[in-house]
């Protein structure tokens, strides 16, 4: 396993953690703000690395030998400022189960994470449900810097809004997102 140092990047750390977990037969997917950081090439900064895994009870035993120290579900390492958090499944964005993830490779190994489109949906979910303007900014940032499937964003917005009885509100917020992207409303 690659040594963790203060120079270890977010993506390298994600690989180191994922590889260590994989070595114990544990699958994981990086989610949350870190994915925004990756797709925005560091324009959005967070020190959290959130992983969804079905094997929460086995994570500790898999990572402690690599020098991680746990407080509850949070893990830290003396050589890095990043904090790991492990989140229970399902891997989903609102009512949409995530079936396809993206495999990222680097010199420390590889890890699975959300696709750029799902990353945008994840941020938009926070904007739609919690009215979180920061999440909207992050969605715009990723959609500006990555190729995303706008038809899927539209389809998911309508489906999600219908399920929770907020179709009009969600579609109105999608229009704001599209306007921020520079599209005509």
């Amino acid at each position: 396993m690659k040594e963790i140092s203060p120079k270890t990047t977010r993506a390298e750390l994600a690989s180191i953690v994922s590889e260590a977990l994989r070595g114990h037969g544990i699958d994981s997917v990086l989610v949350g703000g870190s994915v925004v950081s990756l797709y925005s090439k560091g324009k959005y900064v967070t020190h959290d690395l959130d992983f969804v895994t079905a094997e929460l009870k086995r994570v500790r035993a898999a990572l402690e030998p690599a020098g991680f120290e746990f407080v509850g579900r949070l893990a830290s390492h003396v050589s890095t400022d990043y904090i790991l958090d492990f989140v229970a499944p399902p891997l989903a964005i609102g009512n949409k189960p995530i079936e396809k993830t993206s495999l990222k490779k680097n010199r420390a190994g590889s890890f699975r994470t959300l696709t750029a489109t799902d990353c945008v949906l994840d941020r938009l979910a926070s904007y739609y449900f919690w009215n979180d303007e920061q999440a909207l900014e992050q969605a715009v940032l990723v959609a500006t810097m990555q190729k995303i499937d706008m038809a899927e964003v539209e389809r998911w917005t309508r489906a999600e809004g219908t399920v929770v009885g907020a179709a009009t509100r969600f579609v109105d917020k999608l229009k704001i997102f599209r306007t921020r992207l520079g599209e005509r409303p």
Partner: protein
Amino acid sequence: MVEAIFGNRTAEKVLLFLVKNDQSYAQEIANRVKLSLNLVQRQLKRFEAAGIIAGQVRGRMRFFSLNPRYPFTPELRALLSKALTFLPAKEQAMYDSQRRRPRKSGKPL
């Protein structure tokens, strides 16, 4: 009522209270459903860790509600709402909302 599904009485009471009241904090839930604060806090923590509820900090309080981003929330809400209608009237009152609309300061409650 649906205690067997959720595994224990505390879990059932906390979820029923959150469905009926949309959002609340640990002390209020504990007072209203007549459970110890410690039990309620532990249950809230478990539900939050599983993504079933979400907490938002306002001032010094942490308010919890069903997590709208949890994929099973619509079905969970429907189940709990139905369960509430099956409760005896006396027990239903335990989950009744307190006044949420504004009231000018100084006016007697």
